[in-house]
C-alpha cells in the first residue's frame, strides 16, 4: 500500500515537470514572454530590465533551467495586476475554492450514485427514464447558463437565496448546484451502467443463494463493485471540477482560484496564469492521489499485492 502511494507520488512529480515544461514553452510560443509579463504602459527600458532579470536573453535551455529552479524555490513569478507573488495570490484564494468543491463532490455522490443504482434496478421502466432525463439535463446545460438561470429564479424572482459572493450557508446552495450538476449526472449515468453489469454477475447470484436480503445484495455486494469504474472516472471528473470552478466562480462572484483564473486571462496576467496552471496541476494531482487510495481501498485486487 505504502509502496503504491510512493509510486503515485513519484509519478506526480513527473507529471508536474511535464506540465511546467508545457507552460514554459507555451510562454515562448507567443514570442518573447517579456511582452506577456509587462503591463500595458511599460517602456522599452522596463522591457530590457525584465529580459535581463528573467535571463530571457540567454539560450532557451538556460531559460528553462532558470524557470524550473526558481519554480522549485517556490517562486512562480509576480502577478502583473496585483503586484504580489503569484503563488501568494493563488494560495490566498485557494481556501475559497476548496470550500465549495467538496460540497459539489458530496452532492454528486449522495444524489448521483443512489440515483444510478435505482435507475439500474428499474432498468427500462419509468423511473429509469426519468432519472436518465435528469442526468442528461445535468450534462446538457452549460454551467454558466444554469447558474444565471438559477440566480434569476431563486434570487431575483423568488428571493430565496443570494445571487452571489461568498457568505453564510445560503450562499453555497446555488454555486454548489451549478458546479455539481455535471458531476452528479456523470456519476448517475456511470453508476447505472456499471450497476447493470454487476447485477448480472455470478457472485450476485451466489449472494442471493446465501439468502441475503436484497438491500444487502444491492447496496453491499453490487454497489461496491459498481463503484470501481465510477472511481476511475472520478479522477477524471476532478480535473473538470477544478476547471468548472472557473465558470461557476465567475458567475457567482466567488473569490476563489477559478475566478482568479478568469481574471488572469481577461487581464492577460501571464505570470499569474502560468503559476495558476502549475499550482492547479499540483492540486489535482493531490486529489487524484486521494482518489487512487480510495480506489485501492474499494478494490482489493489493487490493494493487496
Amino acid at each position, binding site marked *: 500500500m505504502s509502496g503504491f502511494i510512493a509510486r503515485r507520488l513519484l509519478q506526480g512529480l513527473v507529471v508536474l515537470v511535464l506540465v511546467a515544461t508545457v507552460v514554459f514553452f507555451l510562454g515562448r510560443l*507567443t514570442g518573447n514572454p517579456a511582452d506577456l509579463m509587462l503591463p500595458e504602459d511599460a517602456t522599452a527600458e522596463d522591457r530590457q530590465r525584465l529580459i535581463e532579470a528573467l535571463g530571457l536573453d540567454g539560450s532557451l535551455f538556460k531559460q528553462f533551467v532558470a524557470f524550473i529552479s526558481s519554480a522549485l524555490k517556490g517562486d512562480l513569478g509576480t502577478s502583473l495586476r496585483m503586484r504580489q507573488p503569484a503563488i501568494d495570490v493563488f494560495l490566498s484564494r485557494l481556501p475559497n475554492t476548496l470550500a465549495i468543491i467538496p460540497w459539489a463532490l458530496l452532492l454528486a455522490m449522495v444524489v448521483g450514485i443512489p440515483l444510478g443504482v435505482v435507475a439500474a434496478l428499474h432498468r427500462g421502466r419509468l423511473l429509469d427514464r426519468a432519472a436518465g432525463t435528469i442526468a442528461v439535463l445535468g*450534462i446538457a446545460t452549460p454551467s454558466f447558463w444554469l447558474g444565471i438561470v438559477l440566480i434569476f429564479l431563486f434570487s431575483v424572482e423568488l428571493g430565496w437565496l443570494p445571487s452571489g459572493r461568498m457568505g453564510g450557508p445560503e450562499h453555497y446552495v446555488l454555486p454548489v448546484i451549478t458546479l455539481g450538476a455535471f458531476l452528479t449526472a456523470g456519476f448517475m449515468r456511470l453508476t447505472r451502467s456499471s450497476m447493470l453489469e454487476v447485477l448480472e454477475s455470478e457472485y450476485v447470484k451466489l449472494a442471493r443463494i446465501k439468502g441475503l436480503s436484497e438491500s444487502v445484495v444491492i447496496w453491499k455486494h453490487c454497489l461496491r463493485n459498481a463503484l470501481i469504474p465510477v472511481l476511475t472516472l472520478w479522477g477524471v471528473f476532478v480535473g473538470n471540477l477544478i476547471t468548472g470552478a472557473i465558470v461557476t466562480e465567475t458567475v457567482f462572484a466567488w473569490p476563489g482560484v477559478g475566478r482568479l483564473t478568469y481574471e488572469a486571462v481577461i487581464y492577460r496576467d501571464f505570470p499569474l496564469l502560468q503559476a495558476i496552471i502549475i499550482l492547479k496541476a499540483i492540486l489535482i494531482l493531490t486529489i487524484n492521489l486521494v482518489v487512487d487510495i480510495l480506489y485501492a481501498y474499494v478494490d482489493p485486487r489493487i490493494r493487496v499485492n
Partner: protein
Amino acid sequence: MRSTPWICILVIVTMVFMAVFAPLLTPYSPIDQTLRDKLLPPFWLEGGSMKYLLGTDAFGRDILSRLLYGARVSLIVATLALTAGGGVGLVIGIVAGYLGGTVESILMRLVDAAFTFPAILFALLLAVTMGQGLGTLVIAISLLLWASFARVIRGEVLALKQRDFVALAKVRGCSEPRIMLTHILPNVLSTFMVLVTLNIGVVVIAEASLSFLGAGIPPPTPSWGLMVSEGRGRIADAWWVSLIPGLAITALVLSVNVFGDWLRDRLDPRLRQL
C-alpha cells in the same frame, strides 16, 4: 429490452440534415444584421412575426438562420473533437491496459498529465496567444477528451484481461495485436459508446463554456454555445435569444444519449445471450 428510439434518431438526423444543408434552408444569412429588427420575439409571441420565425438577437440577426448554421459549427466541433480525442483515447486505453508494464505506466502518466493540465485553461491560453478559432477549440477539446477515454477504457481492459477468453486466445497463440483487435476491442465498445454519448454533451458544453469565457468560436460565426452565451444577460427580457439554442443543445444531447444507451443494449454481448 427497450424499443428503438425513433424520436431520438429523428432528432439526430434532423440536426445533421440542418447542419449539412444550412445554406439552402436558412431564410437569412446568419451574420447579416438588421439593427432595426433587433430582439424581436418568436412568431407565437405578441410582437413576433412570420418574418423571423424564432425571433432575432441583439443585432437583429435571424435566430433560426443562426441556429441552423450553429448546428453546423457545433456538430463539426463535436465530430472532429470526438474522432480525434476519442479515437486516440480508445487506442491508448486498450494498448496501455492490455500490454501493461512500462508501456502502460508511460501512457498513463501522459493521461495523468493531460488531466492535471486543465484543457479549458489550455484553450484559454491558446485563444489568448494564438487567437480563438475552430482549430484552437478542437485541439483543446480533444485534449480534454482523449485522456478520460483512455483512462476509462484502460480500466475496462484491465478487468477484461482476467477473463478466460483472453487467456484462451493467448493459448491459441493469437498475436497480441490480434487479441486486442478481436477480443478486447469488441468488449470495450459498449463502454466506448457510453463515453462517446456522454462526451458529445461534454463537447457541446465545453464549446459553450469557452464561448462564455471568450475563447470559443469567434463571433459573428454562430455556434450554439456562443448563442446561449451571447443571450445570457437577457433571460429577463428576451429569453428566446439564449433559450432557443439552449433547447437545441439539450435536445441534441438528450437524443444522442438515449440513442447511445439503446446502442449499448444492442452492442453488449452479455445482453444478447438471452
